[in-house]
């Protein structure tokens, strides 16, 4: 994640599967084509307006198309979506075919996808089948009845028998052996 991502709207991946079940609602509401009448960088935009714009508007009756001539500024497409997203697309030196392709993208996408920072590369409504982890899963049941602080629980896991304990064990064993010998006699 770079610093330029910090100001993007964070979100999760989603598929607009519900759109089109009953009827399809075009998510693009309004598109403004801004261009200059003289400058060369708006040439493709002017060509598009002259030849293809009327067809585009007829094909997409749900989209409001505005034209906004501005002197000596480069060509721009601004799109507004049903969910409130606003997308700004610079079209300097674009050909009319390129502009048609970009407009097709804007009409078909459900929101301003490139304007969101995807928080995870995956998303699921059922994250876990066995249930999410809690601090109390996989816990040793003997902790339930323990009182704290507890010396037995605090002992290191790999603590070996000390020499002291080993000596006492040996002594006890010796005592028992002596007793058995005496009984045998």
């Amino acid at each position: 994640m770079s610093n330029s991502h910090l100001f993007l709207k964070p979100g999760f991946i989603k598929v607009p599967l519900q759109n089109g079940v009953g009827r399809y609602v075009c998510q693009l509401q309004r598109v403004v084509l801004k261009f200059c009448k003289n400058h060369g960088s708006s040439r493709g935009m002017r060509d598009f307006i002259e030849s293809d714009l009327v067809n585009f508007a007829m094909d997409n009756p749900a989209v409001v198309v505005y034209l906004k001539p501005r002197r000596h500024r480069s060509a721009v497409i601004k799109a507004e979506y049903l969910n409130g997203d606003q997308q700004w697309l610079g079209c300097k030196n674009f050909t009319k075919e390129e502009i048609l392709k970009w407009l097709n993208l804007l009409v078909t996408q459900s929101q301003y996808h490139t304007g969101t920072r995807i928080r995870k590369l995956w998303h699921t409504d059922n994250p876990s089948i066995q249930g999410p982890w809690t601090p109390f899963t996989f816990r040793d049941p003997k902790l339930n009845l323990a009182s704290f602080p507890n010396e037995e629980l605090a002992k290191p896991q790999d603590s070996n028998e000390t020499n002291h304990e080993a000596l006492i064990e040996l002594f006890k064993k010796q005592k028992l052996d002596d007793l058995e010998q005496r009984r045998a006699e």
Partner: protein
Amino acid sequence: MSSLKRVQQWATFARIWHIYNAAWQNPFHSSELIKKYLMGMYKPIYHPMNDCGDHVIVINSKEIALPGDEWKKRVYFHHTGYPGGATWTLAWELHQKDPTMIMKKAVYNSMDGNLQRRYTMQRLHIFPDENVPKEFLGNVTNEIKQLRPMPKRLDCYPEKDVKEFPKVIDYPEDYVIR
């Protein structure tokens, strides 16, 4: 969010309380261990951006054991900000003034210096002895295992055990027992 899912969320992100007995333990090795519990790094849900750290109570910080001659050699530096305001305090001096300070500084220094560090430190509760407030102890549900076994001093054994301890050698006749 249904009420079941809400409770599930509470359960997953519940802060639990651990207790750690610092007696006879190296504070600098212990701090690496305590840090993991304080920041929640032992949890499968851990992520640096989610707030899943736990509380840790450290008891007996007065009884910590520094390795080698570190009581004499380790120096804590402080500067008041004024000219000539620098002070150097030896570890044993600092421990006399505040028996929790060495442990606290060890944990603080074991963590990266970011914005979360001070909030993480607020979840660490250090006590010089075993006197912990009851409302703190009531929360505890886990004991952190110590790094080293605690040795027991001779004067801590009952007198009967000392007397009945098996005789390993016979003292020579001219040996003087004081």
